[in-house]
């Protein structure tokens, strides 16, 4: 059986779309009369074309316009760069990190970092330092506590943006749709 080339296939589709000129269409019809396989291919493509052409417009819910008009003042929601899945993974990561830090704090792992930082012991060029530097008392334990608090805040933020807001937003929308 004669093989149909890509060019012939394209021509058949242009024919179905009505995009061939009178002369081109006549030439194709002539080829169709002579070639059984070209005819068969046209039928296959025509079948797909007919099935696809059956697709119709779908109407949204009755209160679609009303919803839009009632919410015109809302600032359009910007798409979050975090998908719920990625947000959930990030949330788990933050919670695990926070958990480990709290555990380490509880077991006293940061107690050894409790000495004040002696800025005087730093070897800096004399011209930079005129007065004597004070000793700042920042303990590792305090820093870890601050980090834990920040982590918990971040976890709440991620939970809100990626899980709670999309969930309640969808729920509210499903109710107005049904």
């Amino acid at each position, binding site marked *: 059986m004669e093989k149909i080339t890509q060019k012939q*296939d*394209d021509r058949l*589709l242009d024919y179905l779309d009505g995009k061939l000129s009178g002369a081109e269409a006549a030439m194709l019809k002539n080829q169709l009369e002579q070639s059984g396989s070209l005819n068969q*291919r046209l039928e*296959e*493509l025509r*079948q*797909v*074309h007919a*099935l*696809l*052409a*059956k*697709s*119709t*417009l*779908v*109407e*949204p*819910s009755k209160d*679609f*316009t009303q*919803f*839009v*008009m009632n*919410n*015109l003042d*809302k*600032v*359009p*929601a910007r*798409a*979050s760069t975090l*998908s*719920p*899945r990625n947000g959930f993974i990030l949330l788990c990561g933050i919670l695990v990190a926070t958990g480990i830090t709290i555990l380490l704090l509880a077991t006293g792992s940061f107690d050894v970092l409790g000495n004040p930082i002696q800025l005087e012991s730093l070897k800096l060029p004399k011209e930079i330092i005129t007065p004597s530097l004070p000793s700042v008392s920042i303990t590792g334990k305090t820093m870890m506590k601050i980090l834990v608090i920040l982590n918990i805040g971040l976890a709440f933020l991620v939970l809100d943006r990626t899980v709670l807001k*999309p969930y309640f*937003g*969808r729920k509210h*929308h*499903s109710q107005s*749709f049904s």
Partner: protein
Amino acid sequence: MESSVKRTVITIQEENELIDRILAGERQLYATLVNKYKSYAFTIALKIVENKPEAEEAAQDAFIKAFHYLKSFNRQAKFSTWLYRIVFNTAISYKRKNRHPFQDIEENTVEYHEQADSQLEKDDKQIFLSQAMDRLNEADRLSIQLYYIKELSLEEVAETMGQNLNTIKVRVHRARQRLADELKRILKQEALTL
């Protein structure tokens, strides 16, 4: 729910005048534009997100965005094309954001009705077509689905998807050729199992 509602008929010139009045403060007139394009917007969004509530949300969000950016609408382009592009991008964002990788098997249960048999036979080819459609890549599938939405030209599909006209033409041609091949293969297989 198929399209049965009579759509508002307004010319491009009337549409531009309407946009001027909306921009001048008569915001209630925006409802005319929403009514005119809501089915198209919803259908485009539905083809992308494949879920009715999400498609509705995306289409509404797109209309709200379009209202906020109406000032920046370039009158040389058609309002519809500009709007469809917003709908397309919004729906793509929704799809990325709300991917559903896991589907409950129970949700996919097909209920058997004797009366449905003849309808099933009638719709067989349509079912085979959707099976074949699933085998296309997403860009090809969307190109062909948008192209077959009533009254959308290749140019409009290209502008909506933000792609080159030739690329879309190739995608639409290639998708139909693949669908024809796939449909032939499925029908052959079906004939063998009978």
